[in-house]
């Protein structure tokens, strides 16, 4: 069995499962946030009763992150509804806005707080819940109805997906990041190339990535239609998790009997810095092919591209230079925001590098990744070209209907911010 099959077999109490089987699995953790938590709770109450209790409140993690720093009254009402839910259900894993517990983007916060544990089953009311698969767990996004069902029963039906395997061989060149690797995969198989399937990543270049960077690979599995993304855990993952939780977990590892529907093997050295051109994540081009395209905005942030590693990469190029276009820096979480001040390139903190380069730094949240209310920090406003480390560039995704978004690595975004046109980061690294 593949990693995904082993986890689903265990979670459904079976010796084995195979692709296509429909199984009911026991859920280890349910994640929700401010957009989908309130309607999921409404459905829960409608179906289980006003006074019903969650199946296990200690397994419910509530991380508001989407619409936080806005004046929008309806958005605030969602956070109030989460507060009420947390109080009624006595939830201990609620990371409330305006308190020291506030985190920021849920997928990064799950990792930081030790909720991503190898071998476990995580569902979340967010399509990028697949991010957590980097920790060797089965993690996928669901809607409000499914979430409400889990809240009442602790179970959900799953169709066991076939597994597609993506191997990146060789050392990872210094001009590439995880973002380039996943843009390569999505460009190769298309926006629906992994629909219903598990995407498993492997190979020397993949395991050379630090833990958070691996999350960028699994994060964008959904952009190829994947049900989940996954990697077998290694020592780096186990150390990371053990440092953050006391909860026992049982990892699964790659087995010789694993049957893959298909395997793609790539040589990391052959891959170039890439972008996804407007308006689809699979609209792949080498940065070189579109170099010189005029830009009006650059954005570094989100669950895909707002990790400490992304800012370190961007700062490598921005240090000592000034950006030519408005450039927005949005740490995924508050912890990442603090690390910007405590992480140095030379004698300058990342924070100072960005300020001195003329960037605007925002508060930790989803920010303009999904557009959001009109007053959202960094939101695309007009018919403009945006280069962004985020994960989606569908029409209107970053706010304005007229914006054209190029998805790229933090190195490419930084190089392009310095010139005001799409720029291959190798031009600056050399």
């Amino acid at each position, binding site marked *: 069995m593949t990693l995904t099959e082993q986890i689903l077999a265990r979670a459904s109490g079976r010796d084995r499962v195979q692709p296509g089987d429909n199984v009911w699995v026991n859920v280890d953790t349910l994640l929700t946030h401010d957009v989908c938590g309130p309607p999921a709770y409404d459905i829960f109450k409608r179906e289980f009763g006003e006074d019903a209790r969650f199946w296990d409140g200690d397994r419910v993690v509530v991380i508001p992150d989407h619409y936080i720093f806005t004046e929008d009254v309806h958005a605030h009402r969602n956070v109030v509804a989460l507060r009420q839910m947390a109080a009624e259900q006595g939830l201990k894993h609620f990371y409330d806005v305006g308190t020291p517990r506030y985190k920021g983007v849920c997928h990064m916060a799950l990792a930081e707080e030790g909720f991503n544990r190898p071998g476990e089953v995580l569902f979340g009311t967010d399509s990028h819940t697949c991010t957590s698969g980097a920790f060797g767990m089965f993690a996928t996004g669901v809607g409000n109805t*499914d979430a409400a069902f889990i809240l009442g029963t602790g179970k959900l039906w799953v169709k066991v997906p076939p597994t597609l395997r993506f191997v990146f061989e060789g050392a990872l060149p210094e001009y590439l990041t995880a973002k380039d690797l996943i843009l390569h995969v999505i460009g190769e198989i298309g926006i629906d190339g992994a629909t219903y399937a598990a995407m498993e990543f492997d190979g020397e270049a993949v395991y050379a990535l630090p833990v958070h960077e691996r999350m960028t690979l699994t994060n964008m599995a959904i952009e190829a239609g994947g049900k989940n993304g996954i990697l077998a855990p290694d020592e780096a993952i186990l150390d990371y998790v053990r440092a953050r939780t006391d909860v026992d977990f049982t990892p699964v590892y790659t087995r010789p009997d694993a049957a893959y529907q298909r395997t793609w093997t790539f040589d990391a050295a052959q891959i170039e810095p890439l972008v996804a051109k407007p308006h689809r994540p699979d609209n792949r081009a080498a940065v070189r092919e579109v170099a010189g395209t005029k830009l009006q905005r650059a954005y570094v942030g989100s669950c895909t591209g707002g990790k400490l590693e992304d800012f370190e990469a961007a700062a490598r190029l921005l240090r000592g230079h000034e950006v030519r276009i408005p450039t927005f820096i949005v740490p995924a979480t508050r912890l990442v925001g603090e690390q910007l001040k405590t992480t140095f390139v030379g004698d300058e903190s990342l924070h100072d590098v960005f300020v001195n380069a003329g960037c605007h730094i925002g508060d930790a949240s989803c920010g303009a990744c999904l557009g959001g209310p009109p007053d959202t920090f960094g939101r695309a406003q007009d018919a403009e070209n945006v280069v962004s480390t985020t994960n989606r560039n569908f029409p209107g995704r970053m706010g304005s209907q007229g914006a054209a978004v190029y998805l790229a690595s933090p190195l490419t975004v930084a190089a392009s911010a310095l010139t005001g046109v799409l720029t291959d980061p190798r031009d600056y690294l050399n």
Partner: protein
Amino acid sequence: MLATTSGLAYVLGDSIDTDQIIPARYLVYSMTVPEERAKYGQYALSAVPIEQAGLPEGGIPFVGEGETTSRYAVIVAGENFGCGSSREHAPFALREAGIGAVVAASYARIFYRNAVDGGFVVPCESVENLTVAVRTGDEVTVDPDSGTITNHTTGQTHALRPLGDVAPILHAGGLFAYARQSGMIAAR
């Protein structure tokens, strides 16, 4: 038995993502408060680029100015309908706008699952891509149980794929009704 849906068809292309079906900025509205709920119908499909809205000509808004429901009853679309964000607000918005069935060549899985488990719209898969055989404004009838979509304007009938594993959930009317019928959770 699943209800048949008859009415005007609205045709869309490939990979219509959930941000186009219901843009993120409207997700702040309540799905239960009636006057806010109506906004989901009003803004359904409002972010589809206008030249791709209502194929083959395009330029046809799905919901008229100032209205909260659509004159169309069936969506016919290409591949990968409903990709992107997991927002259940997407099939919900289509239902609020008055859509009974979607007939797409294929679906992104979370949208499909949300449509089925929430009992919002019946997501039918066409055997062939019907975005040429059906034009926006054609009179159609979708019969999910017999597996057909009939285009009364052209007189042609096209096959749908069997509902497959999700048929029992669709027949029950959604995940909760299904779980009650099968005794997984207590009946009320």
